[in-house]
Protein backbone atom coordinates (compact mmCIF):
# COMPACT_ATOMS: atom_id res chain seq x y z
CA UNK A 1 0.00 0.00 0.00
CA UNK A 2 3.02 2.20 0.44
CA UNK A 3 3.54 2.19 -3.31
CA UNK A 4 -0.02 3.23 -4.04
CA UNK A 5 0.20 6.29 -1.82
CA UNK A 6 3.52 7.20 -3.34
CA UNK A 7 2.25 7.10 -6.90
CA UNK A 8 -0.60 9.33 -5.95
CA UNK A 9 1.65 11.92 -4.41
CA UNK A 10 4.45 11.54 -6.93
CA UNK A 11 7.70 13.46 -6.94
CA UNK A 12 9.77 14.04 -3.84
CA UNK A 13 6.99 13.90 -1.24
CA UNK A 14 7.42 10.22 -0.13
CA UNK A 15 10.94 10.84 1.16
CA UNK A 16 10.02 13.57 3.61
CA UNK A 17 6.80 11.82 4.48
CA UNK A 18 8.42 8.58 5.56
CA UNK A 19 10.84 10.61 7.65
CA UNK A 20 7.85 12.31 9.25
CA UNK A 21 6.27 8.95 10.01
CA UNK A 22 9.41 7.61 11.51
CA UNK A 23 9.85 10.62 13.76
CA UNK A 24 6.47 9.87 15.31
CA UNK A 25 7.47 6.50 16.68
CA UNK A 26 7.34 4.23 13.69
CA UNK A 27 10.93 3.16 14.26
CA UNK A 28 10.47 1.14 17.47
CA UNK A 29 7.36 -0.52 16.10
CA UNK A 30 9.11 -1.46 12.88
CA UNK A 31 12.12 -2.78 14.78
CA UNK A 32 9.91 -4.77 17.15
CA UNK A 33 8.10 -6.49 14.31
CA UNK A 34 11.25 -7.10 12.31
CA UNK A 35 12.93 -8.34 15.48
CA UNK A 36 10.09 -10.78 16.17
CA UNK A 37 10.43 -12.18 12.67
CA UNK A 38 14.18 -12.52 13.01
CA UNK A 39 13.76 -14.09 16.45
CA UNK A 40 11.72 -16.82 14.81
CA UNK A 41 14.60 -17.60 12.47
CA UNK A 42 16.99 -17.50 15.44
CA UNK A 43 14.85 -20.03 17.34
CA UNK A 44 14.98 -22.43 14.40
CA UNK A 45 18.75 -22.07 14.22
CA UNK A 46 19.06 -22.38 18.01
CA UNK A 47 17.17 -25.67 17.99
CA UNK A 48 19.78 -27.15 15.67
CA UNK A 49 22.74 -25.56 17.49
CA UNK A 50 21.78 -26.64 21.01
CA UNK A 51 20.80 -30.15 19.96
CA UNK A 52 24.19 -30.54 18.29
CA UNK A 53 25.97 -29.07 21.32
CA UNK A 54 24.46 -31.64 23.66
CA UNK A 55 24.69 -34.52 21.20
CA UNK A 56 28.44 -34.27 20.60
CA UNK A 57 29.68 -35.41 24.07
CA UNK A 58 27.40 -38.43 23.98
CA UNK A 59 28.43 -39.32 20.45
CA UNK A 60 32.08 -39.11 21.48
CA UNK A 61 31.46 -41.48 24.38
CA UNK A 62 29.65 -43.92 22.10
CA UNK A 63 31.56 -47.15 21.49
CA UNK A 64 29.46 -48.25 18.53
CA UNK A 65 28.55 -46.67 15.22
CA UNK A 66 25.67 -44.27 15.88
CA UNK A 67 24.12 -44.66 12.46
CA UNK A 68 24.14 -48.45 12.14
CA UNK A 69 24.09 -49.88 15.67
CA UNK A 70 20.75 -51.49 16.50
CA UNK A 71 20.75 -51.60 20.31
CA UNK A 72 20.40 -48.71 22.72
CA UNK A 73 22.56 -49.04 25.85
CA UNK A 74 23.35 -45.41 26.35
CA UNK A 75 23.29 -45.53 30.16
CA UNK A 76 25.88 -48.27 30.47
CA UNK A 77 29.39 -47.50 31.69
CA UNK A 78 30.51 -48.22 28.14
CA UNK A 79 27.74 -46.55 26.17
CA UNK A 80 26.76 -48.42 23.06
CA UNK A 81 23.88 -47.07 21.08
CA UNK A 82 22.73 -46.38 17.56
CA UNK A 83 19.63 -45.35 15.68
CA UNK A 84 19.64 -48.25 13.20
CA UNK A 85 16.53 -50.00 14.50
CA UNK A 86 14.88 -46.77 15.61
CA UNK A 87 15.27 -45.01 12.28
CA UNK A 88 14.07 -48.14 10.51
CA UNK A 89 10.99 -48.32 12.73
CA UNK A 90 10.28 -44.61 12.30
CA UNK A 91 10.44 -44.76 8.52
CA UNK A 92 8.52 -48.04 8.12
CA UNK A 93 5.71 -47.14 10.53
CA UNK A 94 5.34 -43.66 9.01
CA UNK A 95 5.15 -44.99 5.47
CA UNK A 96 2.68 -47.65 6.54
CA UNK A 97 0.56 -44.95 8.16
CA UNK A 98 0.83 -42.86 5.03
CA UNK A 99 -0.28 -45.76 2.84
CA UNK A 100 -3.32 -46.29 5.04
CA UNK A 101 -4.22 -42.63 5.47
CA UNK A 102 -3.66 -41.09 2.03
CA UNK A 103 -6.37 -42.91 0.02
CA UNK A 104 -8.92 -42.33 2.77
CA UNK A 105 -7.87 -38.70 3.11
CA UNK A 106 -8.23 -38.13 -0.64
CA UNK A 107 -11.68 -39.70 -0.48
CA UNK A 108 -12.63 -37.48 2.45
CA UNK A 109 -11.30 -34.39 0.65
CA UNK A 110 -13.26 -35.24 -2.51
CA UNK A 111 -16.34 -35.94 -0.44
CA UNK A 112 -16.20 -32.52 1.17
CA UNK A 113 -15.19 -30.60 -1.95
CA UNK A 114 -17.29 -32.30 -4.63
CA UNK A 115 -19.80 -34.78 -3.20
CA UNK A 116 -21.28 -33.54 0.05
CA UNK A 117 -24.24 -31.16 -0.09
CA UNK A 118 -22.96 -27.57 -0.10
CA UNK A 119 -24.57 -26.64 3.17
CA UNK A 120 -23.20 -29.62 5.06
CA UNK A 121 -19.72 -29.47 3.54
CA UNK A 122 -18.11 -27.06 5.97
CA UNK A 123 -19.70 -28.75 8.99
CA UNK A 124 -18.47 -32.14 7.81
CA UNK A 125 -15.03 -30.67 7.23
CA UNK A 126 -15.10 -29.48 10.82
CA UNK A 127 -15.88 -33.02 11.99
CA UNK A 128 -12.70 -34.23 10.29
CA UNK A 129 -10.74 -31.36 11.82
CA UNK A 130 -11.91 -32.56 15.23
CA UNK A 131 -9.86 -35.70 14.66
CA UNK A 132 -6.81 -33.46 14.76
CA UNK A 133 -8.00 -31.79 17.96
CA UNK A 134 -7.92 -35.02 19.96
CA UNK A 135 -4.59 -35.05 21.82
CA UNK A 136 -1.95 -37.60 20.99
CA UNK A 137 -1.99 -39.07 24.48
CA UNK A 138 -5.72 -39.78 24.22
CA UNK A 139 -5.12 -41.71 21.00
CA UNK A 140 -2.41 -43.59 22.85
CA UNK A 141 -4.76 -44.47 25.70
CA UNK A 142 -7.48 -45.47 23.23
CA UNK A 143 -4.89 -47.50 21.36
CA UNK A 144 -3.66 -49.60 24.27
CA UNK A 145 -7.03 -50.11 25.93
CA UNK A 146 -9.27 -50.54 22.90
CA UNK A 147 -7.42 -50.93 19.61
CA UNK A 148 -4.73 -53.38 20.75
CA UNK A 149 -7.22 -56.02 22.01
CA UNK A 150 -9.58 -55.21 19.13
CA UNK A 151 -6.89 -55.83 16.50
CA UNK A 152 -5.84 -59.22 17.92
CA UNK A 153 -8.40 -61.08 15.81
CA UNK A 154 -7.77 -59.31 12.50
CA UNK A 155 -3.99 -59.57 13.05
CA UNK A 156 -4.26 -63.31 13.67
CA UNK A 157 -6.44 -63.61 10.58
CA UNK A 158 -3.89 -61.79 8.43
CA UNK A 159 -1.13 -63.96 9.82
CA UNK A 160 -3.06 -67.20 9.27
CA UNK A 161 -4.26 -66.58 5.75
CA UNK A 162 -1.84 -64.03 4.34
CA UNK A 163 1.25 -65.15 6.24
CA UNK A 164 2.88 -65.98 2.91
CA UNK A 165 3.17 -62.24 2.28
CA UNK A 166 6.41 -61.39 4.11
CA UNK A 167 5.11 -58.38 6.06
CA UNK A 168 2.26 -60.45 7.56
CA UNK A 169 4.57 -63.37 8.35
CA UNK A 170 6.16 -64.30 11.66
CA UNK A 171 5.55 -67.03 14.20
CA UNK A 172 3.94 -65.05 16.96
CA UNK A 173 1.31 -62.39 16.55
CA UNK A 174 1.28 -59.77 19.28
CA UNK A 175 -1.27 -57.13 20.22
CA UNK A 176 1.15 -54.21 20.55
CA UNK A 177 2.50 -54.42 17.04
CA UNK A 178 3.81 -52.04 14.47
CA UNK A 179 0.58 -52.45 12.53
CA UNK A 180 -1.55 -51.10 15.39
CA UNK A 181 0.89 -48.23 15.96
CA UNK A 182 0.74 -47.35 12.29
CA UNK A 183 -3.06 -47.46 12.34
CA UNK A 184 -3.10 -44.90 15.13
CA UNK A 185 -0.56 -42.79 13.26
CA UNK A 186 -2.76 -42.99 10.17
CA UNK A 187 -5.75 -41.69 12.13
CA UNK A 188 -3.66 -38.82 13.44
CA UNK A 189 -2.26 -37.70 10.08
CA UNK A 190 -5.49 -38.15 8.15
CA UNK A 191 -6.92 -34.71 9.08
CA UNK A 192 -3.93 -32.72 7.82
CA UNK A 193 -3.77 -34.61 4.52
CA UNK A 194 -7.53 -34.28 4.07
CA UNK A 195 -7.54 -30.57 4.96
CA UNK A 196 -4.84 -29.58 2.48
CA UNK A 197 -6.18 -31.82 -0.29
CA UNK A 198 -9.61 -30.33 0.25
CA UNK A 199 -8.29 -26.78 -0.11
CA UNK A 200 -6.49 -27.74 -3.31
CA UNK A 201 -9.49 -29.54 -4.79
CA UNK A 202 -11.70 -26.56 -4.03
CA UNK A 203 -9.34 -24.35 -6.05
CA UNK A 204 -9.56 -26.50 -9.17
CA UNK A 205 -10.67 -24.27 -12.05
CA UNK A 206 -14.47 -24.12 -12.05
CA UNK A 207 -14.63 -23.42 -15.78
CA UNK A 208 -12.83 -26.66 -16.62
CA UNK A 209 -15.12 -28.62 -14.33
CA UNK A 210 -18.22 -27.11 -15.90
CA UNK A 211 -16.83 -27.62 -19.39
CA UNK A 212 -16.24 -31.30 -18.65
CA UNK A 213 -19.77 -31.70 -17.33
CA UNK A 214 -21.19 -29.82 -20.32
CA UNK A 215 -19.45 -32.28 -22.64
CA UNK A 216 -21.35 -35.07 -20.94
CA UNK A 217 -18.72 -36.32 -18.51
CA UNK A 218 -19.95 -38.09 -15.41
CA UNK A 219 -18.94 -36.63 -12.08
CA UNK A 220 -16.07 -39.09 -11.72
CA UNK A 221 -14.82 -38.38 -15.23
CA UNK A 222 -14.96 -34.65 -14.50
CA UNK A 223 -12.95 -35.19 -11.29
CA UNK A 224 -10.42 -37.42 -13.03
CA UNK A 225 -9.94 -35.01 -15.92
CA UNK A 226 -9.94 -31.63 -14.22
CA UNK A 227 -9.72 -31.89 -10.42
CA UNK A 228 -7.15 -34.63 -9.88
CA UNK A 229 -4.54 -33.42 -12.40
CA UNK A 230 -4.81 -29.94 -10.93
CA UNK A 231 -4.63 -31.20 -7.37
CA UNK A 232 -1.89 -33.80 -7.72
CA UNK A 233 1.07 -31.68 -6.54
CA UNK A 234 -1.02 -30.41 -3.64
CA UNK A 235 -1.98 -33.93 -2.59
CA UNK A 236 1.64 -35.06 -2.84
CA UNK A 237 2.85 -32.29 -0.61
CA UNK A 238 -0.04 -32.88 1.80
CA UNK A 239 1.03 -36.51 2.04
CA UNK A 240 4.60 -35.42 2.71
CA UNK A 241 3.48 -33.08 5.49
CA UNK A 242 1.55 -36.00 6.91
CA UNK A 243 4.67 -38.14 6.68
CA UNK A 244 6.65 -35.55 8.61
CA UNK A 245 3.99 -35.46 11.28
CA UNK A 246 3.85 -39.25 11.55
CA UNK A 247 7.61 -39.41 12.03
CA UNK A 248 7.55 -36.88 14.85
CA UNK A 249 4.55 -38.35 16.63
CA UNK A 250 5.63 -39.44 20.08
CA UNK A 251 3.29 -40.30 22.88
CA UNK A 252 0.71 -42.42 21.11
CA UNK A 253 3.37 -44.69 19.63
CA UNK A 254 5.38 -44.68 22.86
CA UNK A 255 2.38 -46.31 24.50
CA UNK A 256 1.61 -48.72 21.67
CA UNK A 257 4.87 -49.83 20.07
CA UNK A 258 6.47 -52.89 21.70
CA UNK A 259 9.71 -50.88 22.00
CA UNK A 260 12.00 -53.60 20.78
CA UNK A 261 15.27 -53.02 18.97
CA UNK A 262 14.89 -55.22 15.92
CA UNK A 263 14.98 -54.61 12.22
CA UNK A 264 12.22 -56.65 10.63
CA UNK A 265 9.40 -56.04 8.19
CA UNK A 266 7.08 -58.42 10.05
CA UNK A 267 4.56 -55.84 11.20
CA UNK A 268 2.44 -58.25 13.23
CA UNK A 269 5.28 -59.59 15.40
CA UNK A 270 6.93 -57.89 18.34
CA UNK A 271 8.79 -55.37 16.19
CA UNK A 272 8.37 -51.67 16.15
CA UNK A 273 9.87 -48.66 17.78
CA UNK A 274 10.62 -45.15 16.68
CA UNK A 275 13.07 -42.39 17.50
CA UNK A 276 10.38 -40.31 19.15
CA UNK A 277 8.90 -43.22 21.11
CA UNK A 278 12.36 -44.17 22.35
CA UNK A 279 12.93 -40.63 23.62
CA UNK A 280 9.67 -40.69 25.57
CA UNK A 281 10.27 -44.18 26.96
CA UNK A 282 13.95 -43.80 27.72
CA UNK A 283 14.07 -40.31 29.16
CA UNK A 284 12.99 -41.22 32.67
CA UNK A 285 15.98 -43.43 33.47
CA UNK A 286 18.54 -41.70 31.27
CA UNK A 287 21.77 -40.48 32.86
CA UNK A 288 23.86 -37.65 31.45
CA UNK A 289 25.26 -39.60 28.49
CA UNK A 290 21.86 -41.21 28.00
CA UNK A 291 20.18 -37.82 27.69
CA UNK A 292 22.83 -36.72 25.24
CA UNK A 293 22.22 -39.86 23.23
CA UNK A 294 18.47 -39.21 23.17
CA UNK A 295 19.17 -35.64 22.06
CA UNK A 296 21.40 -36.98 19.29
CA UNK A 297 18.55 -39.20 18.09
CA UNK A 298 16.22 -36.21 18.33
CA UNK A 299 18.61 -34.26 16.14
CA UNK A 300 18.35 -36.96 13.49
CA UNK A 301 14.56 -36.80 13.74
CA UNK A 302 14.68 -33.00 13.47
CA UNK A 303 16.81 -33.16 10.33
CA UNK A 304 14.64 -35.83 8.67
CA UNK A 305 11.38 -34.00 9.37
CA UNK A 306 12.98 -30.71 8.30
CA UNK A 307 13.94 -32.17 4.93
CA UNK A 308 10.53 -33.78 4.42
CA UNK A 309 8.74 -30.55 5.30
CA UNK A 310 10.99 -28.41 3.11
CA UNK A 311 10.39 -30.72 0.16
CA UNK A 312 6.64 -30.58 0.78
CA UNK A 313 6.63 -26.78 0.99
CA UNK A 314 8.75 -26.56 -2.11
CA UNK A 315 6.24 -28.63 -4.05
CA UNK A 316 3.43 -26.35 -2.87
CA UNK A 317 5.24 -23.10 -3.50
CA UNK A 318 6.13 -24.01 -7.08
CA UNK A 319 2.47 -23.65 -8.01
CA UNK A 320 1.22 -20.09 -7.84
CA UNK A 321 -2.38 -21.33 -7.80
CA UNK A 322 -1.80 -22.74 -4.34
CA UNK A 323 -0.65 -19.41 -2.96
CA UNK A 324 -3.20 -19.33 -0.16
CA UNK A 325 -3.03 -22.97 0.85
CA UNK A 326 -1.42 -23.28 4.25
CA UNK A 327 -1.57 -25.93 6.89
Amino acid at each position, binding site marked *: *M*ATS*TQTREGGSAPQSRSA*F*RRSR*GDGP*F*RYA*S*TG*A*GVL*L*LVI*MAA*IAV*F*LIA*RAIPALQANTASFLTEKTWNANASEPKFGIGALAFGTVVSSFLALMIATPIA*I*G*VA*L*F*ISHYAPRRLASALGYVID*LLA*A*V*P*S*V*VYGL*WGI*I*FLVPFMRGPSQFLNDYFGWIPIFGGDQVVGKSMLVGSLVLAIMILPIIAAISREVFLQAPKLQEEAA*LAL*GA*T*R*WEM*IRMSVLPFGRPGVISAAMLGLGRAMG*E*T*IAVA*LIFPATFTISFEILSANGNSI*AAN*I*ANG*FGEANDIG*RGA*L*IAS*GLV*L*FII*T*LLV*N*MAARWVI*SRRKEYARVAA
Partner: protein
Amino acid sequence: MSAVTPEIQRISGMRRFKDKGVQFLVYLAFAIAVVPLVSVLWLVVSNGLARFDMEFLTHSMRNIGARDAGGGAYHAIIGTLEQVALASLISVPIGLFTAIYLVEYGNNGRLKRYISFFVDIMTGVPSVVSGLFVLAFWILILGMPFSGWAGAMALSILMLPTVVRAAEEMLLLVPNDLREASYALGVPKWRTIAKVVLPTAFTGIVTGVMLAVARVAGETAPLLLTVFFTDSINNDPFNGPQMGLPLYVFDQAARPNDTAIDRAWAGALTLIVIIMLLNLAARLITYWRSPARKR
Protein backbone atom coordinates in the same frame (compact mmCIF):
# COMPACT_ATOMS: atom_id res chain seq x y z
CA MET B 1 -23.30 -29.06 -10.15
CA SER B 2 -24.57 -32.57 -9.73
CA ALA B 3 -27.84 -31.93 -11.47
CA VAL B 4 -26.22 -30.97 -14.77
CA THR B 5 -25.79 -34.48 -16.24
CA PRO B 6 -27.64 -33.98 -19.52
CA GLU B 7 -29.86 -36.65 -21.01
CA ILE B 8 -28.78 -36.08 -24.61
CA GLN B 9 -27.27 -39.51 -24.95
CA ARG B 10 -27.62 -42.32 -22.46
CA ILE B 11 -24.51 -42.84 -20.39
CA SER B 12 -23.12 -46.30 -21.06
CA GLY B 13 -23.40 -48.88 -18.31
CA MET B 14 -19.69 -49.08 -17.61
CA ARG B 15 -19.30 -45.33 -17.20
CA ARG B 16 -22.31 -45.15 -14.96
CA PHE B 17 -20.99 -48.07 -12.92
CA LYS B 18 -17.60 -46.39 -12.48
CA ASP B 19 -19.23 -43.12 -11.50
CA LYS B 20 -21.43 -44.76 -8.90
CA GLY B 21 -18.55 -46.94 -7.72
CA VAL B 22 -16.34 -43.95 -7.06
CA GLN B 23 -19.18 -42.16 -5.36
CA PHE B 24 -19.63 -45.15 -3.07
CA LEU B 25 -15.89 -45.24 -2.30
CA VAL B 26 -15.82 -41.54 -1.51
CA TYR B 27 -18.76 -41.85 0.88
CA LEU B 28 -17.13 -44.92 2.39
CA ALA B 29 -13.86 -43.05 2.93
CA PHE B 30 -15.67 -40.38 4.88
CA ALA B 31 -17.51 -42.98 6.94
CA ILE B 32 -14.23 -44.77 7.73
CA ALA B 33 -12.65 -41.49 8.82
CA VAL B 34 -15.47 -40.77 11.23
CA VAL B 35 -15.39 -44.20 12.90
CA PRO B 36 -12.22 -43.63 15.00
CA LEU B 37 -13.44 -40.18 16.06
CA VAL B 38 -16.74 -41.58 17.29
CA SER B 39 -14.99 -44.52 18.93
CA VAL B 40 -12.45 -42.34 20.74
CA LEU B 41 -15.03 -39.84 21.94
CA TRP B 42 -17.45 -42.56 23.01
CA LEU B 43 -14.86 -44.50 24.99
CA VAL B 44 -13.42 -41.37 26.58
CA VAL B 45 -16.84 -40.20 27.72
CA SER B 46 -18.18 -43.57 28.84
CA ASN B 47 -14.98 -44.66 30.63
CA GLY B 48 -14.06 -41.20 31.85
CA LEU B 49 -17.32 -40.54 33.66
CA ALA B 50 -16.55 -43.30 36.20
CA ARG B 51 -13.97 -41.15 37.98
CA PHE B 52 -14.99 -37.69 36.74
CA ASP B 53 -16.11 -36.48 40.15
CA MET B 54 -15.35 -33.72 42.65
CA GLU B 55 -12.56 -35.68 44.25
CA PHE B 56 -10.87 -36.04 40.89
CA LEU B 57 -11.09 -32.33 40.18
CA THR B 58 -10.02 -31.14 43.63
CA HIS B 59 -7.34 -33.61 44.80
CA SER B 60 -3.82 -34.40 43.73
CA MET B 61 -2.08 -37.77 43.67
CA ARG B 62 -0.10 -37.09 46.83
CA ASN B 63 -0.02 -40.08 49.20
CA ILE B 64 -1.99 -42.22 46.80
CA GLY B 65 -0.31 -45.62 46.64
CA ALA B 66 0.35 -47.50 43.44
CA ARG B 67 -2.76 -49.64 43.78
CA ASP B 68 -5.04 -47.26 45.69
CA ALA B 69 -8.26 -45.92 44.28
CA GLY B 70 -9.09 -42.25 44.67
CA GLY B 71 -6.76 -39.42 43.93
CA GLY B 72 -7.25 -36.82 41.28
CA ALA B 73 -5.79 -34.50 38.74
CA TYR B 74 -6.03 -31.12 40.47
CA HIS B 75 -2.27 -30.67 40.33
CA ALA B 76 -2.27 -31.55 36.63
CA ILE B 77 -5.12 -29.18 35.78
CA ILE B 78 -3.36 -26.32 37.61
CA GLY B 79 -0.14 -27.19 35.83
CA THR B 80 -1.71 -27.31 32.38
CA LEU B 81 -3.51 -23.99 32.84
CA GLU B 82 -0.35 -22.25 34.06
CA GLN B 83 1.88 -23.74 31.38
CA VAL B 84 -0.53 -22.92 28.58
CA ALA B 85 -1.04 -19.38 29.87
CA LEU B 86 2.72 -18.81 30.05
CA ALA B 87 3.20 -20.31 26.59
CA SER B 88 0.58 -17.91 25.21
CA LEU B 89 2.29 -15.03 27.00
CA ILE B 90 5.52 -15.85 25.15
CA SER B 91 4.18 -16.77 21.75
CA VAL B 92 1.35 -14.28 21.24
CA PRO B 93 3.48 -11.09 21.24
CA ILE B 94 6.22 -12.67 19.13
CA GLY B 95 3.73 -14.26 16.77
CA LEU B 96 1.66 -11.11 16.44
CA PHE B 97 4.66 -8.90 15.71
CA THR B 98 5.97 -11.44 13.21
CA ALA B 99 2.61 -11.39 11.45
CA ILE B 100 2.67 -7.57 11.45
CA TYR B 101 6.12 -7.71 9.90
CA LEU B 102 4.99 -10.15 7.23
CA VAL B 103 1.91 -8.16 6.30
CA GLU B 104 2.85 -4.53 6.92
CA TYR B 105 6.62 -4.16 6.79
CA GLY B 106 7.85 -7.11 4.75
CA ASN B 107 7.46 -5.48 1.30
CA ASN B 108 8.02 -8.87 -0.33
CA GLY B 109 11.71 -8.67 0.48
CA ARG B 110 14.04 -11.59 0.92
CA LEU B 111 13.77 -11.55 4.73
CA LYS B 112 10.01 -11.78 4.47
CA ARG B 113 10.22 -14.80 2.21
CA TYR B 114 12.70 -16.50 4.55
CA ILE B 115 10.55 -15.86 7.60
CA SER B 116 7.39 -16.96 5.83
CA PHE B 117 9.08 -20.16 4.67
CA PHE B 118 10.42 -20.97 8.12
CA VAL B 119 7.04 -20.34 9.74
CA ASP B 120 5.77 -23.14 7.50
CA ILE B 121 8.73 -25.34 8.37
CA MET B 122 8.20 -24.62 12.06
CA THR B 123 4.68 -26.08 11.92
CA GLY B 124 6.41 -29.35 11.10
CA VAL B 125 8.85 -29.35 14.01
CA PRO B 126 7.99 -32.50 15.99
CA SER B 127 6.75 -31.69 19.48
CA VAL B 128 9.36 -33.95 21.04
CA VAL B 129 12.12 -31.98 19.31
CA SER B 130 10.94 -28.71 20.82
CA GLY B 131 11.03 -30.43 24.20
CA LEU B 132 14.55 -31.70 23.57
CA PHE B 133 15.64 -28.20 22.58
CA VAL B 134 14.45 -26.68 25.85
CA LEU B 135 15.95 -29.63 27.71
CA ALA B 136 19.32 -29.11 26.04
CA PHE B 137 19.33 -25.33 26.22
CA TRP B 138 17.55 -24.46 29.46
CA ILE B 139 18.01 -27.46 31.70
CA LEU B 140 21.28 -29.11 30.65
CA ILE B 141 23.34 -26.14 29.46
CA LEU B 142 21.98 -23.33 31.66
CA GLY B 143 21.46 -25.75 34.56
CA MET B 144 17.92 -24.64 35.37
CA PRO B 145 15.54 -27.05 37.13
CA PHE B 146 12.63 -28.86 35.53
CA SER B 147 9.71 -26.45 35.77
CA GLY B 148 6.40 -25.41 34.28
CA TRP B 149 8.18 -22.44 32.73
CA ALA B 150 10.51 -24.74 30.79
CA GLY B 151 7.45 -26.61 29.53
CA ALA B 152 5.82 -23.32 28.56
CA MET B 153 8.87 -22.41 26.48
CA ALA B 154 8.68 -25.73 24.63
CA LEU B 155 4.94 -25.27 24.06
CA SER B 156 5.43 -21.71 22.82
CA ILE B 157 7.71 -22.98 20.04
CA LEU B 158 4.84 -25.21 18.90
CA MET B 159 2.28 -22.40 19.23
CA LEU B 160 4.28 -19.77 17.43
CA PRO B 161 3.73 -20.80 13.79
CA THR B 162 -0.01 -21.31 14.33
CA VAL B 163 -0.33 -17.86 15.90
CA VAL B 164 1.68 -16.23 13.11
CA ARG B 165 -0.37 -17.85 10.35
CA ALA B 166 -3.71 -17.06 12.00
CA ALA B 167 -2.75 -13.44 12.69
CA GLU B 168 -1.30 -13.01 9.21
CA GLU B 169 -4.47 -14.30 7.62
CA MET B 170 -6.59 -11.91 9.67
CA LEU B 171 -4.35 -8.89 8.95
CA LEU B 172 -4.59 -9.65 5.24
CA LEU B 173 -8.39 -9.56 5.51
CA VAL B 174 -8.33 -5.96 6.75
CA PRO B 175 -9.30 -3.85 3.72
CA ASN B 176 -6.56 -1.61 2.40
CA ASP B 177 -9.03 1.28 2.20
CA LEU B 178 -8.97 1.49 6.00
CA ARG B 179 -5.20 1.86 6.05
CA GLU B 180 -5.21 4.44 3.29
CA ALA B 181 -7.96 6.43 4.94
CA SER B 182 -5.88 6.52 8.09
CA TYR B 183 -2.73 7.61 6.23
CA ALA B 184 -4.73 10.31 4.50
CA LEU B 185 -5.52 11.77 7.91
CA GLY B 186 -1.80 11.97 8.60
CA VAL B 187 -1.71 9.11 11.08
CA PRO B 188 1.74 7.47 11.24
CA LYS B 189 2.02 3.90 10.09
CA TRP B 190 2.55 2.36 13.52
CA ARG B 191 -0.50 4.13 14.93
CA THR B 192 -2.49 3.01 11.92
CA ILE B 193 -1.50 -0.56 12.67
CA ALA B 194 -2.14 -0.26 16.38
CA LYS B 195 -5.39 1.71 16.22
CA VAL B 196 -6.98 0.68 12.93
CA VAL B 197 -5.60 -2.59 11.63
CA LEU B 198 -5.28 -4.58 14.85
CA PRO B 199 -8.72 -3.67 16.28
CA THR B 200 -10.32 -4.65 12.97
CA ALA B 201 -8.58 -8.01 12.99
CA PHE B 202 -8.86 -8.49 16.75
CA THR B 203 -11.57 -11.12 16.99
CA GLY B 204 -9.99 -13.18 14.25
CA ILE B 205 -6.65 -13.10 16.00
CA VAL B 206 -8.25 -14.13 19.30
CA THR B 207 -9.82 -17.09 17.51
CA GLY B 208 -6.49 -18.10 16.03
CA VAL B 209 -4.78 -17.87 19.40
CA MET B 210 -7.45 -20.02 21.02
CA LEU B 211 -7.06 -22.67 18.35
CA ALA B 212 -3.30 -22.58 18.88
CA VAL B 213 -3.82 -22.97 22.63
CA ALA B 214 -6.15 -25.89 22.01
CA ARG B 215 -3.49 -27.47 19.85
CA VAL B 216 -0.71 -27.29 22.44
CA ALA B 217 -2.86 -28.02 25.50
CA GLY B 218 -2.81 -31.68 24.55
CA GLU B 219 0.92 -31.94 23.87
CA THR B 220 2.63 -34.47 26.08
CA ALA B 221 6.11 -35.09 24.73
CA PRO B 222 7.58 -31.62 25.37
CA LEU B 223 6.21 -31.62 28.92
CA LEU B 224 7.67 -35.03 29.62
CA LEU B 225 11.14 -33.68 28.86
CA THR B 226 10.86 -30.28 30.53
CA VAL B 227 8.24 -30.34 33.30
CA PHE B 228 8.89 -33.87 34.52
CA PHE B 229 6.49 -35.55 36.93
CA THR B 230 5.14 -34.81 40.35
CA ASP B 231 2.28 -36.22 42.37
CA SER B 232 1.92 -33.11 44.51
CA ILE B 233 0.40 -29.73 43.89
CA ASN B 234 2.99 -27.21 42.74
CA ASN B 235 1.45 -23.80 42.11
CA ASP B 236 4.74 -22.17 41.19
CA PRO B 237 5.50 -22.71 37.50
CA PHE B 238 9.01 -21.30 37.89
CA ASN B 239 10.20 -23.70 40.53
CA GLY B 240 10.40 -27.45 40.52
CA PRO B 241 8.61 -30.16 38.57
CA GLN B 242 4.94 -29.66 37.82
CA MET B 243 2.34 -31.88 36.24
CA GLY B 244 0.24 -31.38 33.16
CA LEU B 245 -3.01 -33.07 32.20
CA PRO B 246 -1.58 -34.86 29.14
CA LEU B 247 1.36 -35.96 31.22
CA TYR B 248 -1.02 -37.20 33.91
CA VAL B 249 -2.91 -39.32 31.37
CA PHE B 250 0.38 -40.72 30.03
CA ASP B 251 1.62 -41.50 33.53
CA GLN B 252 -1.60 -43.21 34.62
CA ALA B 253 -2.08 -45.06 31.34
CA ALA B 254 1.33 -46.69 31.73
CA ARG B 255 0.41 -48.10 35.17
CA PRO B 256 -0.91 -51.61 34.93
CA ASN B 257 -3.91 -51.52 37.26
CA ASP B 258 -7.54 -50.63 36.76
CA THR B 259 -7.78 -47.73 39.19
CA ALA B 260 -4.95 -45.98 37.36
CA ILE B 261 -6.57 -46.67 33.99
CA ASP B 262 -9.82 -45.19 35.29
CA ARG B 263 -7.95 -42.06 36.35
CA ALA B 264 -6.31 -41.94 32.90
CA TRP B 265 -9.73 -41.98 31.21
CA ALA B 266 -11.05 -39.30 33.53
CA GLY B 267 -7.95 -37.22 32.80
CA ALA B 268 -8.47 -37.72 29.07
CA LEU B 269 -12.08 -36.62 29.45
CA THR B 270 -11.03 -33.47 31.33
CA LEU B 271 -8.44 -32.70 28.67
CA ILE B 272 -10.87 -33.20 25.80
CA VAL B 273 -13.50 -31.07 27.53
CA ILE B 274 -10.99 -28.23 27.93
CA ILE B 275 -9.84 -28.51 24.31
CA MET B 276 -13.35 -28.79 22.90
CA LEU B 277 -14.48 -25.76 24.92
CA LEU B 278 -11.58 -23.74 23.50
CA ASN B 279 -12.41 -24.93 19.99
CA LEU B 280 -16.09 -24.21 20.42
CA ALA B 281 -15.47 -20.73 21.82
CA ALA B 282 -13.11 -19.98 18.94
CA ARG B 283 -15.67 -21.15 16.37
CA LEU B 284 -18.44 -19.14 18.00
CA ILE B 285 -16.32 -15.99 17.98
CA THR B 286 -15.56 -16.46 14.29
CA TYR B 287 -19.18 -17.17 13.57
CA TRP B 288 -20.47 -14.05 15.29
CA ARG B 289 -17.80 -11.50 14.59
CA SER B 290 -15.48 -12.31 11.74
CA PRO B 291 -14.30 -9.32 9.72
CA ALA B 292 -15.09 -11.26 6.57
CA ARG B 293 -18.76 -11.34 7.55
CA LYS B 294 -18.92 -7.68 8.38
CA ARG B 295 -17.62 -6.58 5.02
